[in-house]
């Protein structure tokens, strides 16, 4: 479509506004309230224009383009109106208040040298300041009441924590509560995503780090290092320090969005107790030693152990928090220098069941689709995942889709935020996924909702599956799951008939005694309805850590080489020998739990753990601690002296993601760059340099100068990454594997034509009960998982101002159970399982059903994982974190101080609303 703006012919899309069309054509129109992230609004009225044949001066930001319209954005009349509007803005700013950059520029541009309304005789903006949020501050003096912040909270984040308050001249943004005593943001349901701060055009909302340390002088594009969404950020740097993390508008997975942790939870980087030098254990003390001697020591000890006990006495657990290059090198080190496959990573305790389950059915173990598919999905089904807390940017996108009218099914024993919004919430008993999913299959078969064309062309083994699900009636599933049969039927019908059903799942599927069966059951449903290989569909595991996908991709697995290549593949063996000069060990290595057994049995002598706090986050802590104690030489490499480091003989400090170059692979298989924004303190070596140094010392030189060279090697050895290089990553918004050639643009949507094995495989699975059930002695089922504010072992988030918001794990219990046990909010209780016990404050929460308990595991003090057993999924060894039988005992009621009480009450309100 063509139109004419200021005499210039401009091309626009139908649906564009005049403002957008002008902007595309490089014509800038003065504006304050418009944002391309938000729906047209039209508040400031600076963007007025003149349109031939239309009376008046409409706002260009709310006027849609029409073919051949003739627009003027500059004229004496328009300039005068803009002058008058800017003058009005200036007239309400309190005396002495500093005008923000954009407003100051507008004032110059519009030539407002004086305000004609006499001072003193005019009302000003009320002096309202809200500094209750730990991360940012609102100052009404600088505000122009444009509501961009409110709209951001509604439209982008979907939290509705902000409102315009009052009307007319008084109208101003405000966070929630009405009571004068309320603290504003802190007492609201704000999730500190920072969207409002980013949208604010005037600086009325500003990050505290910027207020305190100044605006950044340069920015570095990088990727968030918390969760698997992989949000792109521009790290703002000033005087060698990061002062701001701003989500990038062109970030492919986040499009300018972020969550509390990525946006504000990076200040651990400057934490005073960051490890700075290698520490050597001397009895109960640490001795600071030089890097030289630390690296020598690792090389010496590993050489000694290998010599004395053989290669099988050494193992490494690599970090899903580190880069692809680092993970590749650790695996290479184990295979080429030590000569074993004893390497694993944190995916073991996380989505290993997904890997197994998807490999068996689809033949590839990563999200089949991309996050952008949420824009085209006709139905979204969230199974055992809590994205608004665990993957908040995905959570917000799902909420946006739901607001657009896309139906939402949530399968979760808890009433999570998405469950509350959902059209259907199937609140099943923990551990009963297979029963429920098979019953959905039953309905699909019975009601003829199968995609026969897809099934016959692209799958095998449907008969077995049909046979299995034919017994799984919704009624029988109701008895197992507790979900009313008719809801199961409804869910099946919605899922089977939407034409594009997007399924994403999380740990509620994998971390079970039969976790891979749960994943398989999901894949069966997708295959049966043809919801694979098409936009807006798929099986999409919400992978957890920033690079848990990458750590497995890079071969930090005892059973696969990089790119999930078989260890016994002769072609690979040859190539490996050529490229690395060493043979590829073919014997499968130990999985993490096997390592604990081996250590306790005295077979494992030397262990290297990088960025993984097993002593806090693995299950059955008593056993893990025992194993760690038995190892002769334990090296732990971390940013902090985490719980695991406390067992180490040698602790090596790590460089954080802000201090190194490399790549992460996010939950949609997208390989993205991280870039060094600041120097690591005290000359800390990044993890990849540490491997190189140790390897050099052990007689196998690793002469890499830069991670890009490591990536080049990965590309030669790994067909699915063959086309990846830093040059390409710098030009693209990352690359989604498979990228088979240098000319290949990456794969946003997998399995379009064929599956890796040709056809996909139905695998019939039957419901089997969890490892443990509630009993008389242990009447509650405990599920563990995460909360928004903290991250896994908490080593990082506990070292930020997030601690002001949440400073303890809490036990969520249904109010009826609270009453039954005569418990009050905030009371500390003892949780007892057959393995151990833990102390936690309890809060009443309607997120859980009676008989069900939930807690997080982010604080070492609560020793939650001491309660858990070693029970795990058979094939993947993914631990059963989601089902433990426990009892709850009241303890001597130590007086909680009133502040804590208030905090807990507040927490309760937040949990419920």
């Amino acid at each position: 479509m063509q139109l004419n703006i200021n005499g210039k012919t401009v091309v626009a899309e139908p649906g564009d506004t005049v403002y957008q069309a002008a902007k595309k054509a490089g014509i800038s129109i003065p504006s304050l309230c418009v944002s391309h992230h938000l729906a047209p609004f039209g508040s400031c009225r600076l963007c007025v224009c003149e349109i031939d044949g239309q009376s008046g001066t409409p706002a260009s930001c709310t006027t849609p383009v029409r073919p051949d319209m003739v627009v003027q954005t500059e004229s004496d009349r328009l300039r005068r109106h803009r002058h008058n509007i800017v003058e009005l803005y200036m007239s309400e700013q309190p005396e002495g208040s500093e005008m923000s950059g954009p407003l100051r520029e507008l004032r110059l541009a519009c030539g407002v040298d004086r305000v004609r309304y006499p001072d003193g005789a005019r009302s000003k903006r009320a002096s309202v300041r809200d500094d209750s949020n730990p991360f940012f501050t609102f100052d009404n003096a600088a505000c122009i009441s444009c509501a961009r912040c409110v709209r951001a909270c509604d439209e982008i984040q979907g939290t509705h924590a902000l409102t315009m308050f009052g009307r007319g001249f008084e109208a101003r943004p405000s966070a929630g509560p009405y009571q004068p005593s309320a603290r504003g943001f802190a007492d609201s349901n704000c999730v500190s995503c920072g969207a409002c701060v980013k949208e604010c055009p005037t600086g009325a909302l500003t990050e505290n780090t910027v207020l305190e340390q100044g605006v950044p002088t340069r920015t570095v594009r990088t990727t968030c290092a918390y969760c698997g969404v992989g949000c792109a950020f521009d790290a703002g740097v000033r005087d060698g320090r990061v002062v701001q993390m701003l989500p990038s508008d062109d970030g492919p997975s986040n499009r300018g969005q972020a969550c509390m942790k990525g946006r504000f939870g990076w200040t651990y980087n400057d934490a005073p107790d960051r490890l700075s030098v290698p520490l050597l254990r001397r009895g109960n003390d640490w001795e600071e030693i030089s890097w030289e001697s630390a690296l020598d020591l690792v090389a010496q000890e590993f050489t000694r152990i290998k010599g004395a006990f053989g290669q099988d006495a050494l193992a490494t657990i690599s970090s899903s928090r580190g880069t692809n290059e680092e993970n590749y090198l650790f695996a290479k080190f184990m295979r080429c220098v030590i000569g074993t496959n004893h390497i694993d990573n944190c995916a073991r305790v996380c989505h290993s069941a997904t890997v197994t389950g998807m490999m068996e059915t689809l033949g590839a173990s990563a999200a089949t689709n991309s996050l952008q598919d949420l824009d085209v999905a006709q139905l979204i089904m969230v199974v055992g995942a809590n994205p608004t807390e665990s993957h908040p940017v995905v959570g917000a996108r799902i909420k946006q889709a739901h607001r657009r009218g896309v139906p939402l099914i949530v399968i979760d024993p808890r009433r999570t935020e998405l469950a509350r919004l959902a059209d259907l919430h199937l609140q099943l008993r923990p551990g009963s996924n297979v029963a429920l999913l098979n019953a959905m299959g039953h309905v699909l078969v019975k009601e003829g909702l199968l995609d026969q064309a897809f099934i016959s062309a692209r799958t095998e083994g449907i008969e077995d599956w049909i046979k299995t699900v034919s017994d799984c009636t919704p009624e029988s599933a109701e008895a197992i799951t507790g979900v009313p049969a008719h809801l199961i039927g409804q869910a099946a019908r919605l899922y089977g008939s939407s034409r594009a059903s997007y399924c994403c799942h999380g740990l509620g599927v994998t971390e079970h005694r039969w976790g891979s069966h749960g994943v398989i059951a999901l894949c069966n449903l997708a295959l049966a309805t043809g919801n694979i290989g098409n936009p807006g569909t798929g099986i999409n595991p919400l992978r957890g850590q920033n690079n848990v996908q990458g750590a497995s991709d890079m071969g930090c697995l005892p059973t696969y080489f990089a790119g999930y290549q078989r260890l016994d593949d002769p072609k690979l063996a040859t190539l490996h020998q050529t490229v690395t000069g060493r043979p590829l060990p073919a014997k499968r290595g130990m999985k993490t739990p096997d390592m604990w057994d081996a250590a306790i049995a005295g077979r494992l002598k030397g262990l290297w753990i990088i960025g993984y706090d097993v002593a806090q986050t693995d299950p059955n802590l008593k056993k893990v601690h025992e194993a760690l104690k038995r190892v002769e030489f334990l090296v732990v490499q971390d940013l902090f002296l985490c719980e695991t480091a406390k067992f180490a003989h040698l602790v090596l400090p790590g460089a954080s993601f802000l201090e190194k170059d490399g790549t992460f692979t996010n939950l949609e298989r997208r390989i993205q760059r991280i870039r060094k924004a600041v120097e690591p303190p005290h000359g800390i070596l990044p993890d990849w340099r540490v491997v190189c140094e140790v390897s050099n010392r052990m007689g196998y030189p690793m002469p890499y100068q830069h991670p890009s060279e490591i990536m080049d090697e990965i590309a030669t050895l790994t067909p699915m990454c063959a086309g990846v290089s830093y040059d390409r990553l710098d030009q693209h918004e990352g690359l989604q594997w498979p990228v088979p050639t240098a000319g290949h643009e990456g794969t946003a949507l997998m399995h379009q034509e064929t599956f890796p094995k040709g056809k996909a495989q139905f695998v019939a699975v039957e419901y089997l009960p969890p490892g443990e059930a509630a009993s008389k002695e242990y009447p509650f089922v405990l599920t563990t998982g995460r909360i928004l504010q903290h991250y896994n072992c908490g080593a990082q988030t506990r070292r930020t101002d997030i601690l002001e918001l949440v400073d303890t794990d809490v036990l969520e219990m249904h109010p009826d159970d609270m009453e039954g046990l005569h418990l009050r909010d905030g009371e500390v209780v003892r949780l007892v399982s057959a393995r151990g016990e833990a102390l936690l404050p309890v809060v009443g929460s309607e997120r859980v059903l009676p008989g069900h308990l939930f807690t997080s595991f982010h604080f070492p003090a609560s020793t939650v994982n001491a309660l858990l057993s070693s029970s795990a999924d058979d094939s993947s060894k993914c631990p059963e974190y989601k089902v433990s039988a426990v009892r709850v005992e009241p303890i001597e009621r130590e007086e909680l101080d009133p502040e804590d009480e208030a905090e807990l009450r507040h927490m309760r309100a937040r949990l419920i609303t």
Partner: protein
Amino acid sequence: MVRLYLANDTSSCAAGAGRLADAWCERPEIQLIRTSSRGAFFLEPMVERDTPNGRETWFNVAPDDLPRIVAGVGGTPVAEIPFLQQQTRFTFVNFGITEPLAIDEYQTGGGLKGLAAAQGLSPEAIVEELRISRLRGRGGAAFPVWKKWQVAQQVGAEQKYVVANADEGDAGTYCDRMIMEGDPFRLIEGMLICARAIGATRGYIYCRYEYPAAAQTMRFAIQKAREADLLDCDDSPFDLEVVVGAGSYVCGEETALLESLEGRRGVVLAKPPYPAESGLYGKPTIVSNVLTFATIPNILAEGGAWHASLGTEGSCGTMALQLGGRVKQPGLVEVPFGLTLRDVLDRFGGGMAPGSRFKAVQVGGPLGSLFPESQLDIPICYDAFAKAGAILGHGGIVVYDDETNMVELARHFMAFTADESCGKCTPCRIGSVRGREILERIQRGQGTAEDLALLSDLGETMKATSLCALGGRAPYPVLTAIEHFPNEFRRCQKV
């Protein structure tokens, strides 16, 4: 026993009808029928009784007038009241005659004929009838009704809505209240016709908080209509509900109204999308004024051409003018478009209230322009008003006498805008407060010539850039006050 008729609407009661009813309720010699009001409020409380020659009436009745009335002494035939005689009553034909909630009376008087006609027509044909009728919306913007309906009809959606705008925020207007209190089935019938034309299954009447009696009458009427099986549209039930506002003038603006109807802050939204494409809950929605809906049954019953034959070229049909302020005979006047303002004031208003002299008249509510004596020959018609930079609005006509202080009045107007501004757009949110402050300064005797210039400069920016007509029209009454009565403003200036 004598049957007496006494109006039961808010204004008649405020004028004393309520007191009469209280006083007479136990009297065995009479049967009191509570009707709607004729709209000749200067005569209320009016008591009527049947005679062989039609109704006879007693004006401004006090409780002890009863014996006189029962005796039939001193009554005036209704047909001889000039105020009523000179009107052309179509929409208000039942007023003063029927009981508001008597559905059978409504039907006997010709009600439901429009609906029946509509039921015999295709939705397209209904819209076509409206196109022929050239009916324009009576809520203020005077937009052709058929165009909106056609849009809503053509947008595909599983749910559509019909909303009656009963916010009647303009001071000086009360015809919507009269319709809801006095002839509620007419509104329902109009809405049903609309529902049928666009395919809506749900309707709302958004009634301002200040009209509790109207809301209550509507609720009863809806109940009765439902019981009479009237409330269905193409065999599916038509859900109709009264929703009450909470004191915000801007909520009369259609987008703000829909926001408020959804329970949110009644803030104006930028258009497009227009409600007819995407309104309530994002669905196609017709928002029309109560009077607009009430006009429609007759159009369907008598045909669009009949309606188009009334009034002037650009303004067809009749208009319900509502006289108020210092006129001698305030009340409702339904006449075809085209009379001059002077005619209306003289013939119906009867001149000024005793003891007062004319100073100015405001047409179209608080955003309407002021007319001095010299400009009264303007015809009552949308286009003539538009040409004069004025608005007919919802037909409110308020006359000010010479005791009115124009500076205070101008300040009052700006203060109204400042109070009622939704606060969304800058020119209105800040501008109205600055405007008020300037006028306050002038009022205090501290104004300067520059202030008047500033006021007009600010006014131009408000007119041109405000998002809705509240900010956009607010300068008109103020600037016309300055234009026509410059001396009063000059007198107040600092020397």
